[in-house]
């Protein structure tokens, strides 16, 4: 749905955010291969893959790793269409534009032509550099998206503990994740209320004023909410140092996966 109206666009934008969040959670709840692994092991193994992608300069190795990421998506019950859409849109396309000038770099000429007297030469070395760059980006993005789609968001937050990130930061991140949905609901309802009263004929300046007042009102709400949430935390015994529940378990399957990852990286 496309619209020139700022209210419509805001509502559509918020719905898309909610929909993306729900799809990610649904994928993470499926009974696939990656979903069955311990999140800590999964993150470590994916970090190893990403390091390998960054260190290798071989197109074949990159192609194998990219193909492996697609294989992992399939065995984790993620639809390839959704996976490719999420991985190819934006970042790799931008990297394509960045890499484009590299194909005209110095080296053995593959193709040459003249445009208005300017000689353009695509070189083998230039093309290799551009392809390696794009392959690196798409493979890295694929592993990150795969991790995001197969791991529940709260598990990702909890895993941050293994990188020695203080619990207070993880608690705050968790609250941000929790309350962003609440505020999106509030904003959505506000815009629907505006739409129900004034329809879609909002002038630009009037629209700006409405958005400004909404930001102020949301700020006020969030300040009140902070106070209330703090009281709710105090009421249940919070003393300034949050203690978290950790029920992760590493099983034989996780050790085998880690061994397989090391072998794959070693072989490539």
């Amino acid at each position, binding site marked *: 749905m496309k619209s020139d109206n700022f209210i419509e666009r805001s509502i559509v934008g918020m719905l898309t955010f909610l929909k993306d969040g729900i799809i990610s*959670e649904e994928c993470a*709840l499926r009974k696939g291969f990656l979903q069955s692994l311990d999140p800590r092991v999964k993150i470590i193994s994916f970090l190893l893959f990403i390091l390998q992608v960054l260190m290798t300069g071989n197109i074949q190795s990159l192609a194998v790793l990219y193909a492996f990421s697609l294989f992992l998506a399939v065995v984790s019950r993620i639809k390839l269409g959704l996976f490719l859409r999420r991985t190819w849109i934006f970042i790799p396309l931008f990297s394509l534009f960045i890499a484009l000038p590299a194909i005209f770099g110095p080296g053995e000429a593959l193709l040459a032509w003249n445009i208005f007297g300017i000689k353009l030469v695509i070189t083998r070395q230039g093309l290799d550099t551009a392809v390696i760059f794009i392959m690196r980006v798409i493979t890295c993005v694929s592993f990150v998206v795969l991790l995001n789609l197969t791991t*529940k*968001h*709260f598990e990702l*937050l909890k895993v941050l503990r293994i990188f020695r990130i203080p619990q207070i930061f993880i608690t705050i991140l*968790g*609250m941000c*994740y*929790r*309350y962003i*949905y*609440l505020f999106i*609901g509030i904003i959505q309802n506000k815009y629907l209320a505006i739409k129900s009263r004034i329809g879609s004929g909002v002038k630009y300046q009037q629209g700006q004023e409405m958005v400004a007042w909404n930001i102020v009102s949301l700020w006020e709400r969030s300040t009140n*909410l902070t106070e*209330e*949430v703090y*009281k*709710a*935390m*105090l*009421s*249940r*015994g*919070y*003393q300034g140092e*949050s*203690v*978290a*529940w950790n029920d992760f378990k590493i099983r034989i399957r996780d050790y085998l996966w880690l061994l397989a990852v090391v072998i794959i990286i070693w072989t490539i």
Partner: protein
Amino acid sequence: MVTSGSDNYMDNIIFELDKVYFSYLGKFPALCGVNIKINQGQKISIIGANGSGKSTFLQMLDGLIFADQGRVSFCGQQLNEKKFDDLKFSQEFRRKVGFIFQNSDVQLFCPTVKDDIVFGPLQLGVAKGQIQKRLEKLCAALKIEELLDRPAHQLSIGEKRKIAIVSTLIIDPQVLILDEPTAGLDPLTTRSIVDLLIEENNSGKTIITATHDLHIVEEVSDIVYVFGQHKSIVKSGLAVDILNDLVLLEENNLVHIHSHRHKDKVHIHPHLHSEHHADEHS
């Protein structure tokens, strides 16, 4: 340690408020001269219109805000900010008193339902094995197993309220304070929450409920306190006496006159759905 602090302290009085005043920002009065004594194991209801000071009163009982004037004591010990700086007292108090907020979104601040439920006992140093046992027991009793891994924003209002109650019950407090526990809920969920409160009271817990849902008052209270527009208690008494005092309820915006039709007959009467016109409704 929360223990008897004075010689003349009566064993069964759990909360005592003596001429308590409180105002927000020093200029918006919220409680004006509140006197109350709550005994252990009692069911108490606080009823009153919006803005009569019910929520402020409950937050004061839970040691979240403190009186400007007057004295609030719990088991004979005065509650003030200094007292809560003592970690031992604070933890002991939080173990004994549980508070369920009116807005469940405030109380469910963790990424998942399970994290929210175990938050309290974890902070209070309850052993993980013990927490797991309590969690399993509550899950089985309230049939919430399938909600545990879900984020709170995906729950319905009724589910959120239930989880908020469970997140307090898992601490196993002696006193349960509830702010509008049934507001905005469907009849079935309301019923299940009322049943739960009665059950908890039967097991010895003190239940303090603020509500203006008069349907539930009789079941969840031995004594009812009516808060008026002057932010103080205007009357207290047995639930049945208070609910039958229509003048008092009308004066305090707790009932309204309306008319409706039953079969071929139009009635005009106060809107109070407890035992009214039982014969004509049948």
